[in-house]
């Protein structure tokens, strides 16, 4: 009930309305996670992985419809979520990921490929369930308007807010978002801190007495390294809608070619080989006929040196 109250008071961007005693801006996010019917095991595991990584997410049952995505807004309202991550599976193989900010949008539709779940990757990294990640963005996100929108939405979805109830107090993993080849590559690493061999007592970080080095081992000079946790996936932005699961298209990626198109092109290319061969046969026949090499056809004329004329 208290959660409902707190959420009902906030604006869609997670800001509390003015008039509250605590006027400081807050980052409040809750993510509704669900998939459509027809997801493969891999899609399902990816969703489960993300759900375990994001303590502010709420998993829901599969959505029955693929056409009326507007229902998601009502669902989000029902669960008092201000973010939706929807996995839409097509043809039992292609996965489209929708990220949205109900009720007012925007919505981004991605095509997800190169999926690898945490379990199948067998990485050694691990992190606390519910710890808040550091989000690492490529500077390329700041360059274009649509990537700025994408970045903000990713921040809302993957950034765990401080107010979430299930969080744990330490920071032990980082999520990396990089733009390469006009796609967004997502990685998740564990932050492994190892103490360096010699702790300098005169370090600026450590104003305590040098005897405290043993007690405050964590505060000493440490080497930070990363160990990958998983999962891995790549998102290709397809379209950005102004509303939440609706509204006008404000960005469309022209370089995106749908996997259906690629498959059909491959099929057509195969058919093309046959077509060229068949055309070649027809052309050859026509050519032979024009040269008068086919019996009973073609424009062969009887000239005066023809046998029939000569020996008539």
């Amino acid at each position: 009930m208290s959660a409902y109250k707190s959420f009902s008071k906030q604006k869609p961007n997670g800001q509390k309305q003015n008039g509250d005693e605590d006027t400081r801006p807050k980052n409040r996010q809750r993510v509704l996670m669900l998939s459509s019917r027809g997801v493969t095991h891999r899609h399902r595991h990816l969703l489960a992985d993300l759900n375990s990584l994001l303590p502010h997410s709420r998993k829901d049952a599969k959505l029955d419809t693929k056409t009326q995505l507007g229902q998601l807004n009502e669902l989000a309202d029902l669960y008092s979520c201000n973010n939706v991550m929807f996995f839409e599976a097509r043809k039992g193989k292609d996965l489209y990921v929708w990220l949205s900010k109900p009720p007012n949008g925007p919505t981004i539709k991605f095509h997800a490929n190169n999926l690898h779940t945490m379990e199948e990757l067998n990485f050694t990294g691990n992190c606390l369930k519910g710890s808040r990640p550091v989000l690492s963005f490529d500077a390329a996100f700041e360059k274009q308007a649509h990537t700025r929108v994408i970045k903000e939405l990713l921040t809302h979805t993957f950034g765990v807010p401080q107010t979430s109830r299930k969080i744990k107090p330490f920071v032990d993993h980082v999520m990396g978002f990089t733009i390469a080849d006009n796609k967004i590559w997502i990685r998740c690493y564990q932050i492994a801190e190892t103490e360096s061999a010699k702790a300098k007592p005169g370090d600026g970080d450590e104003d305590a007495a040098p005897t405290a080095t043993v007690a405050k081992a964590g505060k000493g000079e440490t080497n930070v390294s990363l160990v990958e946790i998983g999962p891995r996936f790549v998102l290709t932005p397809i379209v950005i809608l102004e509303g939440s699961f609706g509204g006008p298209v404000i960005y469309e990626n022209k370089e995106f070619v749908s996997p259906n198109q690629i498959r059909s092109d491959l099929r057509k290319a195969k058919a093309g080989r046959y077509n060229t061969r068949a055309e070649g046969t027809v052309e050859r026949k026509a050519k032979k006929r024009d040269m008068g090499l086919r019996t009973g056809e073609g424009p062969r004329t009887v000239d005066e040196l023809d046998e029939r004329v000569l020996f008539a």
Partner: protein
Amino acid sequence: MAKDGTLKAALRRQKGVDIKKAKQKKHQKHAEKERKQKRSSEVDIGALQEAIAGKLDELDDEDAAAGGAQLDELANGEAEGWETDESEDAADGGLNVETFEDESESDSDEDETFYTAAGGSPVKKAQTNGAAAADEENDEDEDEDIPLSDIESLASDDKGDVIPHQRLTINNTAALTRSLKSFALPASLPFAAVQSVTSAEPVQINDVEDDLNRELAFYRQSLDAVKEARAKLKKEGVPFTRPADYFAEMVKSEEQMGKVRTKMLDEAARKKASTDARRQRDLKKFGKAVQVAKLQERDKAKRDTLDKINALKRKRQSGNDALTANEDDRFDVALEDAAETDKKDRASRKASGAGPNRKRQKKDEKFGFGGKKKFAKSNDAKSAGDMSGFSVKRMKGGKPGGGKQRPGKNRRAKV
């Protein structure tokens, strides 16, 4: 702006195209007013000029084909609502050059029309009409309009059958920024509230297929972000490092981690086994060589000692050397002793004529002793001439028992 105007005028003169002046004027005025309020878009205009220049060259080359071509220059790709208006005008064969400058945030209802009209694809329509259509969006990347990544992958002779498909780029910057503003988190939030770090410079990945370098770039980006975030969080007094005695549920279960561990152990064991096997193989190969060398060495040592002995013997036979005489004498005594006694023994036995002992004699009687054993059973002249066992009757008359004669072949056949 002035530059732009002259360029347009030149274009018009060259092509002799009449434009729907009134409408455009209106739009332009509107745009200019907007631009005064809004940011100046030098980059966009520059890109626009380039685009127009490029398009002009292209058209000069192939303008016969492009008789019915429609050239739409749309600043920022926003004016798609107008594009549809003008596509009908373009149908009458005139070349239509529309230049709209950066048209940012006009009234919202006009924006709506852009979006809705942008769904169609005039490119495809034009292609079906048989006219070469050149549709240009004023993006920074105009040259990327046509290429399709997957067409290159097809064989060149197959390309003929594949109709390149293309999407219109909709990139409504104004709407995007407005949308971003509507939901963006306030900048006044402390770092700890979001914990988002943007890298200082964009990550450069030359080849996306090169797994190692790509992952390394991702790793570096995240590592830099972690260092920055760590410093900031420490400054804000947020706990960062998990203490060693803090235990809680992890993302990967113990079972999963056990699986990972066993997998790693298996891999390590496999690696170790393979290196061991290789070492063993190498050792075996090497061991054989060692063995051969050892045998050769042994042979050589044997030969050497034999040589030495022979040399000594030779020396002894020929040696009257005073120095070695004594030694040789002593050595020879023993040798000669044995030989002497043996000889003597044999001589005495021969002299006595008694032959071997009784037991030997008996055995010789029983089993035979002495004499040649070879060819004992083979013929000699005498045995070959012996005709005692031969009888003519037996040769001719068959068996002494004299059984019935076998009937002839004819008779046998009859029976």
